[in-house]
């Protein structure tokens, strides 16, 4: 009994002291901060405000290159969304407009009032990058973000949520707590992002979304969004593959991880495009063996080959490391070199396979340019320039003819 009392008392004392301590600290903190801020503002505007802006605008970012010598900041496009149908869900899944809300979440958004740009130059600003997780692609992405921030004289700090929405929730709070000048936000999950964005908006911190599109609801809180045009690149791949396959034959699709935006974009982008341009091509099956194990993918593709035999002409993969490897191995093992395999993205593995002729095509989704883009937008905003509500990286198909242009691989 005694022990129990002691433990409960210790626990409550701990909790109380913790809270009390923090309370005291906070009042002191805010007072100090306020004093510092006002002091800082005065000196900045008087001495270096104008100066900083001119310096910031003079930064030569156009000539910056990535590790392969390609421009770090590439051309972007602003797609135009078609008219939204009355009820997208009523349309068949093979109709492009069925996926309207997935493909064009940025359309028909009435943006909330965004924070005013300080217009005093990007140099010396602090940015926090809320990354969605660790992955070879995102390693290259983060490197580019850091490189770009260095170019613009900004300070960037990275928090990685490791694909965990609960951890990202905590990191959103932590980021707000550090009062950065701007947050670059890569959501773990499209829908969950809304609550996160709402919180950051309420805290008055401008947010630029990147890489993964938030849902329609989330776009209203965003200063701007930039990222790969996922739907466009899968449609582009579908066009190229259909041409290669002669607009006929059955095809199978391997999806990305369930739940992410890539799951829909990379599977249904292909399916809707093919239904439109190649009505003779039949979708035989869609499976989600995941992105962790080439062995699982290999098994699924082997089973497809058994089941569909010569009907199967084309395989679309949503990723080119594990999924392309598994598909290629299964086809080789079955002696089916006639099956065309197309994958999305441009990993080193993909580029090697394209050179060897094992992969018919990949798509250009350069992580470094992806990571540099939001920094450019942020810098422009700090400089008081107008920025677009959303911009996308122009996609491209990588095939045996042009693969040389994309070497060496970024990840």
């Amino acid at each position, binding site marked *: 009994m005694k*022990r*129990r009392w*002691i*433990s*409960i008392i*210790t*626990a409550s004392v*701990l909790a109380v002291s*913790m*809270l009390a*301590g*923090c*309370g005291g*600290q*906070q009042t002191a*903190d805010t007072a100090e901060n306020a004093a510092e801020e006002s002091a800082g503002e005065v000196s900045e505007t008087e001495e270096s405000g104008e100066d900083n802006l001119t310096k910031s605008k003079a930064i030569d970012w156009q000539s910056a290159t990535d590790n392969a010598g390609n421009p770090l900041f590439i051309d972007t496009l602003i797609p135009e969304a078609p008219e939204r149908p009355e009820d997208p869900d009523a349309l068949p899944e093979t109709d492009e407009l069925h996926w309207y809300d997935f493909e064009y979440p940025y359309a028909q958004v009435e943006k909330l009032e965004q924070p005013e740009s300080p217009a005093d130059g990007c140099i010396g600003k602090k940015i926090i990058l809320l990354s969605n*997780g*660790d992955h070879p692609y995102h390693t290259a992405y983060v490197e580019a973000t850091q490189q770009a921030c260095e170019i613009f004289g900004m300070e960037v*700090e*990275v*928090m*990685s*949520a*490791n*694909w*965990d*929405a*609960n*951890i990202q*929730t*905590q*990191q959103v*709070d*932590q980021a*707000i*707590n*550090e009062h950065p000048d701007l947050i670059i936000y890569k959501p*773990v*999950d*499209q*829908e*969950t992002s*809304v*609550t996160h964005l*709402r*919180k950051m908006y309420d805290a008055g911190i401008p947010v630029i979304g990147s890489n993964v599109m938030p*849902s329609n*609801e989330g776009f209203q809180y965003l200063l701007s969004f930039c990222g790969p045009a996922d739907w466009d690149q899968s449609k582009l791949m579908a066009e190229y593959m259909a041409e290669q396959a002669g607009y006929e034959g059955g095809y199978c699709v391997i999806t990305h*991880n*369930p*739940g992410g935006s890539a*799951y*829909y974009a990379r599977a249904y982008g292909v399916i809707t495009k093919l239904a439109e341009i190649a009505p003779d091509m039949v979708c035989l099956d869609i499976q*989600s063996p995941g992105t962790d194990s080439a062995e699982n993918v290999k098994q699924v593709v082997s089973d497809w080959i058994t089941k569909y035999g010569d009907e199967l002409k084309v395989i679309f993969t949503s990723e080119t490391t594990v999924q392309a490897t598994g598909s290629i191995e299964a086809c080789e093992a079955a002696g089916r070199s006639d099956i065309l395999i197309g994958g999305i993205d441009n990993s080193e593995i993909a580029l090697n396979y394209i050179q060897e002729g094992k992969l018919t095509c990949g798509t250009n989704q350069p992580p470094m340019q992806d990571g540099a883009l939001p920094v450019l937008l942020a810098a422009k905003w700090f400089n008081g320039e107008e920025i677009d509500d959303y911009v996308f990286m122009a996609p491209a198909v990588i095939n045996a003819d042009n693969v040389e242009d994309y070497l060496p691989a970024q990840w």
Partner: protein
Amino acid sequence: MVKDRKKVWAALNARRIYWIFLLVFLILSIFAPNFFNAYNIGVILGTAMLNGIVVVGFTIVLICGHLDLSTVAIINLAGNLAIYVVEKTDNFVLAILAATVAGVLVGTVNGLLVTKAKINSFIATLGMSTLIQGLVSYSNNAATRSITNFAMTDFLDAKWIPLLPNRALLAIIIVLVMEIFMNWTVIGKNFYLVGGNIESAWYAGIKTDRYLTSAFSINGGFAALGGAVYACYLASAMADIGAMGISPLNMLIAASVLGGASLTGGKGSVLNSFFGVLTLTALYNGLTCFRLGYEMQIFVNGLVLIVVVLMEAVSLYRKNKLLGSKSDLLKEK
């Protein structure tokens, strides 16, 4: 003297989670930038909400000497169900209730599989986990369900008590109530007896099967409650929150073991496990303050776990060695 030292050591070990918590908290407060301030403490407490509620039931199952691997699947089931109900009725209370009932049902099935069909709990719950997760993913084609009603978000983020977000308050109330239930009521104490030695509990006239089954039901209920409240807070429910990141299951096991629970049963306490969750949450938070990546977080998490487990094992090993040399004779005067 030797005996006293041992007693002190045992007392320290029994409350080790508080020392570890204090240590972690102190070190981070001193060294981690932006860690020790009111806002961030609120963040830590708030983040601990999901795992803090879920760990209650999880610990009770551990106290009974079993492991429930389907906990994460139940969290997902409850989240999706709750969001679905809110979508249809706009009623949060009904949603959370419905989800909790579903969780209790799944937990009861788990319990019956273990007690009536006599399947090892590890295996039974592994199978249930695959089954339920499959159903949840299938129900919405693995898409995240979401609502645009943020009433619950605002309510849970509000602070009725200064510094303490309501979601943390909710977790703390649940933990305290269950701690009192487990320690001050006969029913609660019986769980410990069942877990400590199921045979002697049976001889003592305790309906062991009923207790085991209800332990799983309780776990199902709290996992579902946590999952549902969390989903309402985020205004969305992912098909599988543990799909790509580190599964909450690992966090739950680590937290309860830090808190003194053992997988062999009979040991542990709800409050201690909650502090285990708090410690790990604070650790993750602090490491993020240092801008250390997630890799460092799992690494440190593993190290802490290893140190604690080893410490306990070595002390037990020494005790057993003593037992071998007829230590009970020493006790006789």
